[in-house]
């Protein structure tokens, strides 16, 4: 056990003043200290990507980052994607294309895909497949995730 450090995490535009041990991962801090449980933890070793959030515009594995490293940075999680009652095009595309079953990996896939498409709206289908193979899903066989992300990419480019 070690002393706690005070810091502020800015999640979806809201500041959370928290005190955590230096070993606290960003994923744990988001979920437990800030109460935003939409970000899920699937492996804690950076393979499955369920905990993916967007930090200063980049999708990151929040289980591989310490909370203290994220202080002062802009963090976006699945809770911040929709605009009120209007789903983000990526969320809507996942629903329309049945891109989720149990829903556990879904927040990670949404943040991964949104983060990459915001940075690179014209990404090729093949590069997109490479990006999506960063995360694991055990239910869908990926067919409908790929379909959903391609549909959302089109929609996001149109705006």
């Amino acid at each position, binding site marked *: 056990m070690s002393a706690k450090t005070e810091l502020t995490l800015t999640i979806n535009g809201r500041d959370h003043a928290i005190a955590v041990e230096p070993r606290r991962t960003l994923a744990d801090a988001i979920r437990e200290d800030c109460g935003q449980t939409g970000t899920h933890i699937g492996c804690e070793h950076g393979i499955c990507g369920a905990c993916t959030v967007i930090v200063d515009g980049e999708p990151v594995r929040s289980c591989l980052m310490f909370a203290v490293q994220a202080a002062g940075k802009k963090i976006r999680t*699945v809770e911040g994607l929709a605009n009120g009652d209007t789903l983000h095009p990526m969320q809507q595309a996942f629903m329309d294309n049945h891109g989720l079953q149990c829903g*556990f990996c879904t927040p990670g896939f949404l943040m991964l895909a949104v983060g990459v498409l915001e940075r690179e709206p014209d990404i090729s289908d093949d590069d997109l497949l490479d990006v999506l193979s960063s995360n694991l899903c055990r239910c869908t066989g990926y067919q409908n995730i790929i379909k959903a992300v391609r549909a959302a990419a089109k929609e996001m480019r149109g705006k």
Partner: protein
Amino acid sequence: MTAHTKGSGLKWVGRAIRRVEDPALLTGQGRFTADLAAAHWVRFVRSPVAAGKITKIAAPQGAMVITAADLKGVKKITPMLHKFNYKAVGQPILANAVVRFVGEPVAAAVAASEEAAEDIADLVELIIDETTPVTDGRAALVSGAPQVHAEAPGNVIVEGNFKTPDFDAVWKNAAKVVKVDARSRRQNATPMEARAGHASYDASTGRVTLTCGTQMPHLTRTAIADLLGMPEADLRVIAPDVGGGFGQKMALPAEYAVLVWLARKLKSSVAWTEDRRENLIASFHSRDQYVTLEGAFDKNAKLLALRADVVANVGAYSCYPTTCGVEPLMAMAEMPGPYDFRAYECRARGVLTNTCTMAPYRGVSRPVITFTLERLMDKAAAAFAIDPVDIRRRNLIDKFPYTSAMGLVYDEASYRETLEMAVKAIDVPAFRARQKQERAQGRHLGIGFATFSERTGYGSPAFAARGMDIVPGWDTVVLSVDPSGYVEARIGSSPHGQGLRTSLAQIIADEIGVTPDVIKVTHGDTDRSPYGWGTFGSRSLVISGGATLIAARKVRAKLLTIASTMLEAAAGDIVLENGMAKVAGTDRSVPIAKMAREAYTQTHRFKGEIEPGLTETGSYDPPGTFSNACHVAIVVVDVETGHVTVEKFLVAEDAGRIINPMIAEGQVHGGIAQGIGNALLEEIVYDENGGILTANLADYMPPTAREMPPIELHHMETPSTTSITQAKGLGEGGSIGAPAAVINAINDALTPFGVQIDEMPATPQRIRAALRAAEKAA
């Protein structure tokens, strides 16, 4: 932000409506077990060795560490089969004096945070006198092998034997005998959410609420109440959003019982979230089998007789409630598959070893037996110099109902039709031409077929036939139209990704004339759902769907009676649609919501002729049915590296009436991905000391989007007469057929090299080893 479920006119069943489950899951509002806060956290201290005697467990000063010594009076997990020479073996919920596999929970460290509990667990002094372990199923059968349990001498815990009376005579008359020695390596179902439990004590009632990742909330309650000797009424089990199960969350974890015990002791809340390493080493495993299969054929390549020997490595204990008999005995019962033959002999053994306990995993034994039987068919085709499609045409069952050599009754299927659909869609002649062309350029393509049946939606007689002490099968649905006019179906099934809330709402909507958006399906809470068996074995749509239809028909009948009183018309003249009861051909109508309100608040108007309220119960316990499919894989094998790419996957399937095609296709996709993982990538590897070498997701590799080929689906709908909704289950089919199709395709690609791959996963190492051996021999 609601599901797109509004609309009218069409029937709801058969439409790809959006899922009611999705909005919450898409916005981060899903509620999974690990989302709950707790006063106490548990870290389990697990055995680092595969076999031995515990000589010392010492906790750090002042820390709370629970061991078997604290759990006086707690029973062992002891599932039971009353047949097949089953030996009852018990698992203490924390290891008591002896450890039997790496990862077995030995002690529970308890602290105010997860980190603090981990720190304590790291400081627990655990001394074990190691003994020699046995980890391989065949090695455990060798005379003199280490004994895992004294109750099961020779390590055989269950043994099924079957032989048709005519077997020897038929065998003697065979023109050709073809043999396959198949090996299926061990897998882990790997749901993306590992296991998690949260037990909370309510001081005012003395009750404990256990929220956990489970597929069987009611049976979890029954089992833990039995183990701890407490009334079931004092335990509430909630399966909230559950992040996949695939069978791994069907078996009872010892850890959940420890949590309930702790919550009662501490009179507080206690939580445990399994990490991925624990999940890979100490959650349940599956598919570890050796199968030797011989087929006797006549001179026209018609199968006459089948002889099987199954050795299933079931690990260190027996899983509750199915027992470890589930793999070997299912192999024995369903080995005959979709083929017509009358003589059958099988010996199927479950063998104890010092490895993690086996439990059902999507498809249970069928991915393995289908792989073996389909390898046999391809080898036989080669032996007779005919096409793999042709040998299946000669042997598939085409007259129904059909009673298998084992005695199973196949009510209806379309084996030949789906094979022909697949053959046509994939264009076999065009593929063969391309294969020849590419081979000339050193690129090795192969095509593989798998035809199979998937037993689904079976009720209690099927489980009773296995001699199970706990016989699941039926399910119950309580359907209410409450005074608000909204509809609630409380179900005993416990879906966790299957979209059952949506599919059942479609069934109800059609029956009682309302739209799905006024229907709520409630599950996964033993305080609110009727006792039921949860979700496993491709059963829920058939059985819960059937119970839903039965309850909905009763509600419908009552609505018609109420409407006939309120509208002063004959019940037969009333139609229910769009939330209204109408007198056909007139403009007289009354909203169903108003009828519901009056069924509670204006009962005096019904003069005692109609019982108060609008709640009906349906239970369903069907005989079971079979879905079927033909899978086709096209692969490319890089003979230099042994790497396999699945280029295309095609499915022609028949699951009876489809309630929601979007959900049905999603189930098939997901199963195929797991099957491809099974065939190529996923393997739990033990070293010679019983340590696990694959304890993270970089070493144990479920497929990613990159490994998945495009999947082309073709459907047939042969309505089932043994399912009242005419629907059959299809949750497991993808994982049953895919391994066989992929492995057959690899073998087809490697035909010029004269190698045979009869082991899965067919990793690059195994393929290269086979190629090297063939080169050496040549």
